[in-house]
Protein backbone atom coordinates (compact mmCIF):
# COMPACT_ATOMS: atom_id res chain seq x y z
CA UNK A 1 0.00 0.00 0.00
CA UNK A 2 1.49 3.22 -1.11
CA UNK A 3 0.44 5.15 2.00
CA UNK A 4 2.21 2.74 4.35
CA UNK A 5 5.33 2.69 2.19
CA UNK A 6 5.59 6.47 2.18
CA UNK A 7 5.20 6.61 5.95
CA UNK A 8 8.02 4.12 6.49
CA UNK A 9 10.29 5.98 4.11
CA UNK A 10 9.71 9.20 6.04
CA UNK A 11 10.58 7.52 9.32
CA UNK A 12 13.78 6.08 7.85
CA UNK A 13 14.85 9.46 6.54
CA UNK A 14 14.24 11.10 9.92
CA UNK A 15 16.19 8.43 11.80
CA UNK A 16 19.18 8.71 9.48
CA UNK A 17 19.65 12.44 10.32
CA UNK A 18 18.97 12.24 14.06
CA UNK A 19 22.60 11.72 15.19
CA UNK A 20 24.54 14.91 16.11
CA UNK A 21 27.06 16.14 13.55
CA UNK A 22 30.72 16.26 14.60
CA UNK A 23 31.55 19.91 15.31
CA UNK A 24 34.75 21.81 14.94
CA UNK A 25 35.63 23.86 17.96
CA UNK A 26 37.86 26.92 18.12
CA UNK A 27 39.61 28.87 20.83
CA UNK A 28 42.31 31.51 20.92
CA UNK A 29 45.47 32.26 22.83
CA UNK A 30 47.63 35.33 22.46
CA UNK A 31 51.25 35.85 21.57
CA UNK A 32 52.55 38.64 23.82
CA UNK A 33 55.75 40.66 24.17
CA UNK A 34 57.01 43.88 25.73
CA UNK A 35 59.75 45.79 23.96
CA UNK A 36 61.91 47.71 26.39
CA UNK A 37 63.19 51.19 25.79
CA UNK A 38 66.83 51.09 24.72
CA UNK A 39 69.33 51.69 27.52
CA UNK A 40 71.71 54.65 27.24
CA UNK A 41 74.55 55.79 29.46
CA UNK A 42 76.46 59.05 29.24
CA UNK A 43 79.61 60.21 31.00
CA UNK A 44 78.56 63.71 31.99
CA UNK A 45 81.51 64.85 34.07
CA UNK A 46 85.09 63.72 34.46
CA UNK A 47 86.65 62.79 37.79
CA UNK A 48 88.82 65.89 37.97
CA UNK A 49 91.73 65.94 40.39
CA UNK A 50 92.86 69.31 39.10
CA UNK A 51 96.46 70.31 39.85
CA UNK A 52 98.58 67.89 41.86
CA UNK A 53 102.19 68.27 42.94
CA UNK A 54 104.80 65.49 43.08
CA UNK A 55 104.44 63.42 46.26
CA UNK A 56 100.99 64.88 46.84
CA UNK A 57 97.97 62.75 47.62
CA UNK A 58 94.61 64.08 46.52
CA UNK A 59 91.14 62.62 47.13
CA UNK A 60 87.94 63.51 45.32
CA UNK A 61 84.91 62.01 47.04
CA UNK A 62 82.01 60.59 45.07
CA UNK A 63 79.33 63.26 44.93
CA UNK A 64 81.75 66.14 45.23
CA UNK A 65 81.70 68.84 42.59
CA UNK A 66 84.79 67.36 40.94
CA UNK A 67 83.61 63.75 41.06
CA UNK A 68 82.90 61.69 37.98
CA UNK A 69 79.24 61.54 36.92
CA UNK A 70 77.27 59.17 34.70
CA UNK A 71 73.63 59.44 33.58
CA UNK A 72 71.65 56.37 32.52
CA UNK A 73 68.23 56.18 30.82
CA UNK A 74 65.96 53.21 30.16
CA UNK A 75 62.48 51.84 30.69
CA UNK A 76 60.87 53.51 33.71
CA UNK A 77 60.79 51.25 36.74
CA UNK A 78 62.89 48.58 35.07
CA UNK A 79 65.55 46.56 36.85
CA UNK A 80 69.05 47.12 35.52
CA UNK A 81 72.61 46.49 36.63
CA UNK A 82 75.66 48.66 36.13
CA UNK A 83 79.32 47.85 36.60
CA UNK A 84 82.83 49.01 35.89
CA UNK A 85 84.47 46.18 33.97
CA UNK A 86 87.83 47.68 34.84
CA UNK A 87 89.07 50.48 37.08
CA UNK A 88 92.36 52.07 36.10
CA UNK A 89 95.22 51.66 38.53
CA UNK A 90 97.03 54.67 37.17
CA UNK A 91 96.16 57.98 35.62
CA UNK A 92 97.91 57.44 32.34
CA UNK A 93 101.41 57.10 33.79
CA UNK A 94 102.95 54.93 36.47
CA UNK A 95 103.78 57.92 38.65
CA UNK A 96 100.12 58.72 39.17
CA UNK A 97 98.33 55.90 40.94
CA UNK A 98 94.61 55.65 41.53
CA UNK A 99 93.10 53.86 44.51
CA UNK A 100 90.29 53.87 47.08
CA UNK A 101 87.44 54.25 44.63
CA UNK A 102 84.15 55.48 46.06
CA UNK A 103 80.72 55.65 44.53
CA UNK A 104 77.15 56.89 44.95
CA UNK A 105 74.04 56.01 42.97
CA UNK A 106 70.33 56.95 42.95
CA UNK A 107 67.39 57.51 40.60
CA UNK A 108 67.49 61.29 40.96
CA UNK A 109 70.29 63.62 39.91
CA UNK A 110 71.17 64.67 43.44
CA UNK A 111 74.08 63.15 45.35
CA UNK A 112 72.56 63.95 48.72
CA UNK A 113 70.72 60.88 49.92
CA UNK A 114 72.28 58.65 47.28
CA UNK A 115 73.31 55.07 48.06
CA UNK A 116 77.00 54.56 48.69
CA UNK A 117 78.89 51.68 47.07
CA UNK A 118 82.48 50.68 46.50
CA UNK A 119 83.26 50.50 42.80
CA UNK A 120 84.93 47.16 42.14
CA UNK A 121 86.05 45.97 38.74
CA UNK A 122 83.58 43.41 37.38
CA UNK A 123 81.14 43.74 40.27
CA UNK A 124 77.60 44.77 39.29
CA UNK A 125 75.13 46.87 41.23
CA UNK A 126 71.47 46.01 40.65
CA UNK A 127 69.14 49.00 40.75
CA UNK A 128 65.69 50.16 39.63
CA UNK A 129 65.37 52.95 37.12
CA UNK A 130 63.26 55.91 38.13
CA UNK A 131 59.63 54.87 37.89
CA UNK A 132 58.61 58.15 36.29
CA UNK A 133 61.36 59.04 33.84
CA UNK A 134 63.56 55.92 33.63
CA UNK A 135 66.72 57.78 34.70
CA UNK A 136 69.53 56.74 37.04
CA UNK A 137 72.77 58.42 38.11
CA UNK A 138 76.20 57.33 39.34
CA UNK A 139 78.98 59.38 40.95
CA UNK A 140 82.55 58.13 41.42
CA UNK A 141 85.54 59.39 43.34
CA UNK A 142 89.03 58.09 44.05
CA UNK A 143 92.41 58.95 45.57
CA UNK A 144 95.28 60.04 43.32
CA UNK A 145 98.85 59.64 44.59
CA UNK A 146 101.64 61.39 42.74
CA UNK A 147 105.12 59.88 42.88
CA UNK A 148 108.10 61.93 43.97
CA UNK A 149 109.05 62.64 40.40
CA UNK A 150 106.33 63.18 37.87
CA UNK A 151 106.72 64.91 34.57
CA UNK A 152 104.56 68.01 34.39
CA UNK A 153 101.60 67.77 32.09
CA UNK A 154 97.96 66.93 31.66
CA UNK A 155 96.98 63.33 32.13
CA UNK A 156 93.74 61.50 31.35
CA UNK A 157 92.46 57.94 31.69
CA UNK A 158 89.07 56.58 30.62
CA UNK A 159 86.69 55.00 33.10
CA UNK A 160 84.00 52.91 31.44
CA UNK A 161 80.59 52.19 32.94
CA UNK A 162 78.44 49.35 31.53
CA UNK A 163 74.69 49.08 32.12
CA UNK A 164 72.31 46.26 31.12
CA UNK A 165 68.78 45.07 31.80
CA UNK A 166 68.42 42.32 34.33
Amino acid sequence: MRTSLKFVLALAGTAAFAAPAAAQITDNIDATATVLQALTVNGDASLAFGNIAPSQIKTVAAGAAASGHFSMAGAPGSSVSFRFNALPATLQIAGLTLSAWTGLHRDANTAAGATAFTPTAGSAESVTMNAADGNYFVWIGATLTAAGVVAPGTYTQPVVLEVFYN
Partner: protein
Amino acid sequence: MPAGRFLLLPMLLAVAAAPLPAQRPIQVEGIKNLAFGLLLAGTPMSVLRTDAVRAGQVNITAQPKSSIIIQISLPASMSGPAGATLPVAFGPSDAGYSALGDIGSQVAFDPRNSTVVLTNTSNGRGTLYLGGTASPAFNQQPGNYTGTITITVAYP
Protein backbone atom coordinates in the same frame (compact mmCIF):
# COMPACT_ATOMS: atom_id res chain seq x y z
CA MET B 1 1.92 -7.39 -4.23
CA PRO B 2 1.99 -8.46 -0.59
CA ALA B 3 5.30 -10.29 -0.81
CA GLY B 4 7.01 -7.26 -2.26
CA ARG B 5 5.77 -4.91 0.47
CA PHE B 6 6.85 -7.14 3.35
CA LEU B 7 10.33 -7.49 1.90
CA LEU B 8 10.79 -3.71 1.58
CA LEU B 9 9.77 -2.77 5.12
CA PRO B 10 12.44 -4.82 6.98
CA MET B 11 15.19 -3.38 4.76
CA LEU B 12 14.17 0.19 5.55
CA LEU B 13 13.90 -0.55 9.23
CA ALA B 14 17.36 -2.11 9.23
CA VAL B 15 18.85 1.02 7.68
CA ALA B 16 17.05 3.33 10.09
CA ALA B 17 17.99 1.30 13.18
CA ALA B 18 21.76 1.12 12.48
CA PRO B 19 23.47 3.23 15.26
CA LEU B 20 25.70 6.10 14.17
CA PRO B 21 29.04 6.47 16.04
CA ALA B 22 28.58 8.52 19.19
CA GLN B 23 31.34 11.07 19.69
CA ARG B 24 31.98 13.26 22.69
CA PRO B 25 31.69 16.93 21.75
CA ILE B 26 35.07 18.54 21.24
CA GLN B 27 36.24 21.12 23.75
CA VAL B 28 39.14 23.45 23.10
CA GLU B 29 40.43 25.68 25.88
CA GLY B 30 43.29 28.16 25.70
CA ILE B 31 45.28 27.82 28.93
CA LYS B 32 48.43 29.93 28.49
CA ASN B 33 49.56 32.61 26.10
CA LEU B 34 52.78 32.36 24.12
CA ALA B 35 54.68 34.91 26.20
CA PHE B 36 57.90 36.25 24.72
CA GLY B 37 58.36 38.51 27.74
CA LEU B 38 60.74 41.48 27.77
CA LEU B 39 62.51 42.12 24.48
CA LEU B 40 65.30 44.44 23.46
CA ALA B 41 65.08 46.26 20.15
CA GLY B 42 67.12 44.45 17.54
CA THR B 43 67.43 41.23 19.53
CA PRO B 44 65.28 38.23 18.46
CA MET B 45 63.74 36.08 21.15
CA SER B 46 62.74 32.44 20.70
CA VAL B 47 60.44 30.50 22.99
CA LEU B 48 60.66 26.73 22.83
CA ARG B 49 57.49 24.65 22.86
CA THR B 50 59.04 22.89 25.87
CA ASP B 51 59.29 26.12 27.88
CA ALA B 52 57.03 25.50 30.86
CA VAL B 53 56.73 29.19 31.63
CA ARG B 54 56.48 30.91 28.27
CA ALA B 55 55.15 28.36 25.76
CA GLY B 56 51.52 28.64 24.69
CA GLN B 57 49.23 25.87 25.91
CA VAL B 58 45.82 24.69 24.74
CA ASN B 59 43.88 21.81 26.28
CA ILE B 60 41.68 19.62 24.10
CA THR B 61 38.99 17.16 25.14
CA ALA B 62 37.28 14.81 22.71
CA GLN B 63 36.33 11.18 22.27
CA PRO B 64 38.89 8.89 23.97
CA LYS B 65 41.35 7.19 21.64
CA SER B 66 40.06 9.16 18.67
CA SER B 67 41.73 10.94 15.83
CA ILE B 68 41.32 14.68 15.77
CA ILE B 69 42.57 17.30 13.36
CA ILE B 70 44.34 20.32 14.81
CA GLN B 71 44.62 23.46 12.71
CA ILE B 72 46.41 26.57 13.95
CA SER B 73 45.98 30.04 12.53
CA LEU B 74 49.19 31.95 13.23
CA PRO B 75 49.81 35.72 13.11
CA ALA B 76 52.68 37.10 11.04
CA SER B 77 53.20 39.87 13.56
CA MET B 78 52.07 41.24 16.90
CA SER B 79 50.43 44.64 17.13
CA GLY B 80 51.72 47.33 19.47
CA PRO B 81 51.61 51.03 20.27
CA ALA B 82 50.79 53.58 17.59
CA GLY B 83 50.23 50.89 14.99
CA ALA B 84 53.68 49.38 15.36
CA THR B 85 54.07 45.71 14.46
CA LEU B 86 56.58 43.17 15.72
CA PRO B 87 57.30 40.23 13.40
CA VAL B 88 56.75 36.75 14.78
CA ALA B 89 57.63 33.50 13.03
CA PHE B 90 56.95 29.81 13.55
CA GLY B 91 59.15 26.95 12.46
CA PRO B 92 58.62 23.28 11.65
CA SER B 93 59.05 22.10 15.24
CA ASP B 94 57.45 24.96 17.10
CA ALA B 95 54.31 23.02 18.00
CA GLY B 96 53.96 19.86 20.05
CA TYR B 97 51.15 17.57 21.16
CA SER B 98 50.90 15.35 24.21
CA ALA B 99 48.01 12.98 24.90
CA LEU B 100 49.32 12.81 28.46
CA GLY B 101 49.30 16.54 29.07
CA ASP B 102 53.03 16.36 29.73
CA ILE B 103 55.15 19.14 28.26
CA GLY B 104 58.15 16.85 28.50
CA SER B 105 56.64 14.08 26.38
CA GLN B 106 55.14 15.93 23.44
CA VAL B 107 55.51 15.03 19.79
CA ALA B 108 56.60 17.90 17.60
CA PHE B 109 54.77 19.09 14.52
CA ASP B 110 54.76 22.10 12.21
CA PRO B 111 52.13 24.56 13.46
CA ARG B 112 51.81 25.98 9.94
CA ASN B 113 50.20 22.74 8.78
CA SER B 114 47.20 20.81 10.06
CA THR B 115 48.02 17.65 11.93
CA VAL B 116 46.08 14.56 12.98
CA VAL B 117 46.66 13.22 16.47
CA LEU B 118 45.10 10.70 18.83
CA THR B 119 43.40 11.71 22.02
CA ASN B 120 44.18 10.04 25.32
CA THR B 121 42.96 6.46 25.43
CA SER B 122 41.18 6.77 28.74
CA ASN B 123 39.97 10.35 29.04
CA GLY B 124 40.00 11.79 25.53
CA ARG B 125 42.29 14.64 26.45
CA GLY B 126 45.32 16.12 24.76
CA THR B 127 47.46 19.22 25.12
CA LEU B 128 48.93 21.45 22.44
CA TYR B 129 52.15 23.40 23.15
CA LEU B 130 53.41 26.25 21.02
CA GLY B 131 56.69 28.15 20.71
CA GLY B 132 57.93 30.73 18.22
CA THR B 133 60.37 33.54 17.51
CA ALA B 134 59.78 37.27 17.88
CA SER B 135 62.14 39.60 16.00
CA PRO B 136 62.00 43.22 17.10
CA ALA B 137 63.63 45.69 14.74
CA PHE B 138 66.55 47.88 15.79
CA ASN B 139 64.18 50.82 15.96
CA GLN B 140 61.26 48.86 17.43
CA GLN B 141 58.78 51.07 19.23
CA PRO B 142 58.89 50.30 22.98
CA GLY B 143 55.68 49.00 24.46
CA ASN B 144 53.35 46.03 24.71
CA TYR B 145 52.55 43.85 21.71
CA THR B 146 49.92 41.14 21.18
CA GLY B 147 48.81 38.81 18.40
CA THR B 148 46.00 36.26 18.21
CA ILE B 149 46.60 32.55 17.67
CA THR B 150 43.48 30.53 16.75
CA ILE B 151 43.30 26.80 17.35
CA THR B 152 40.59 24.78 15.58
CA VAL B 153 39.96 21.12 16.35
CA ALA B 154 37.62 18.73 14.50
CA TYR B 155 37.03 15.06 13.98
CA PRO B 156 38.23 13.79 10.59
